[in-house]
């Protein structure tokens, strides 16, 4: 099995523009930012949430707290993955009770990550509302979960993988569609 790049879905400047738009949408639809907070899902949801928060600062100086959530303890496939799961840190320094939380992740696919993330949030308290913001929605849901804020929807096949590469984590900044092909 080889991995080949099929196409580029977003360039660095398109990612940037999309983040600006998502920030505007969240502020607009939330009806007040008083109780608003962003929760980045590890790993690539974290820099995305920070960038959206930064973009919000540019909109009337809105200051929104950002937390980080690791979903490892809440995964439903721990007994199926390669041995020895590794926990990463979560960092949510504000109380989530009665907050209007926006989960931020890079790709929405089966919905299982978001299911796990919601379980993680509810262990911390009772938020007033939880919504979801993703850079890419690639379909193939296995859970009744939808994103309220979508950077871009993409039609994909099951063998394809959407890779969001961000400069904070990867050596480059773009979104690509890759495929697994038999040699």
């Amino acid at each position, binding site marked *: *099995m*080889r*991995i080949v790049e099929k196409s580029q879905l977003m360039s660095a400047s398109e990612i940037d523009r999309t983040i600006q738009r998502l920030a505007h949408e969240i502020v607009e639809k939330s009806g007040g930012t008083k109780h608003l907070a962003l929760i980045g899902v590890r*790993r*690539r949801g974290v820099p995305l949430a920070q960038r959206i928060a930064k973009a919000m600062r540019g909109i009337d100086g809105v200051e929104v707290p950002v937390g980080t959530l*690791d979903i*490892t*303890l*809440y*995964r*439903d*496939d*721990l*007994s*199926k*993955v*390669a*041995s*020895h*799961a*590794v*926990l*990463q*840190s*979560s960092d949510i320094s504000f109380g989530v009770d009665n907050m209007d939380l926006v989960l931020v*992740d*890079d*790709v*929405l*696919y*089966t*919905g*299982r*990550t*978001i299911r*796990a993330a919601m*379980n993680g949030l*509810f*262990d*911390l*308290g009772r938020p007033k509302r939880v919504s979801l913001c993703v850079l*890419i929605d*690639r379909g193939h849901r*296995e859970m009744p979960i939808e994103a309220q804020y979508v950077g871009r929807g993409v039609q994909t096949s099951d063998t394809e*993988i*959407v*890779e*969001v*590469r961000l400069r904070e984590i*990867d050596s480059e900044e773009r979104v690509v569609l890759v495929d*697994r092909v038999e040699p």
Partner: protein
Amino acid sequence: MTYRFRDLLALEPLSADELTFLLDQSKLFQEIQRHPLKKLATLRGKTVTLAFFENSTRTRISFSTAASRLGADTMNLQAEASSLKKGESLLDTVYTLNAMKPDCLVMRHAASGAADFVARNLDIPVINAGDGTHEHPSQGLLDALTIRDRRGSIENLKITILGDIQHSRVARSNIHLLGKFGGQFTLCGPAMWVPRELENIGPPGCVIRRVSRIEEGLEDADVILVLRVQTERMYEPTLSAEEYILLYQLNAERLRLANPNALILHPGPMNRGVEISPEVADGPQSCVLEQVTNGIAVRMALLFLLMSGATEGGEGALADEASGAPNASPEKKESTHAAD
């Protein structure tokens, strides 16, 4: 860095990187102790068997609490009630326990090497909760985590261990762990409890000296590990309690000989007024209760590490989400496929 083994039997074979990994993972589980809801469902449906062939209260409760906070169930075997009293061999007992299909065995036994022997005969992860005078790895880890939390680092410490070191698996696990981070040890106690062979048990390059006067032993110490006087391991009265108090009790006056910020650790249960005076046990340098709290985090990390993941198969850590990591192999993608 991750962890190479199926079991945790001893700290001696672990590298500094692996030990750091275990401490870092434990650190993340400390956070969960502060959640309003402490119970996770991560290991729901899994069973941990706690087989304590030697009496234990705190270690057993600590493992049991750790298992329960991860959502696992526990089965308990207690020494007095066990069929060992009726003459069953250790191996027959663990085969019987294993036939109840637990997912992990935590065991304590009076014989050094017992956990290793059992692990070689079972196909589930085994955690050594103390084997004879050999090791008590989870205690070594929780001691190191406690020191690292207070001081910020476990590098190049001067550690004084007080008491019956000959019979102490806690001392050995501490030497094997802290010795890999440049720790220098002073072993201090009555001569019959601090035999010469202890000088060579540390990792390569680890300096271990023996002294018999406590005043000399405490000088310059960054960490003082006070051991319990273990009456159950002494087969004849070698030293009276009064003499021990006079010669070796850690009291406020003697503590002044150590580094002013020296930390005091005790694996418990304490004989208050014997090896440690009450004002020292309750003083600001004492870490005794932090050790207990950290014990849960360490044991949660160990149970999570050894009980998550497929029993056979893949190398290494969890692969990145299917959306992510350009470098992840297609096989790993396959295996984590269901998680987004």
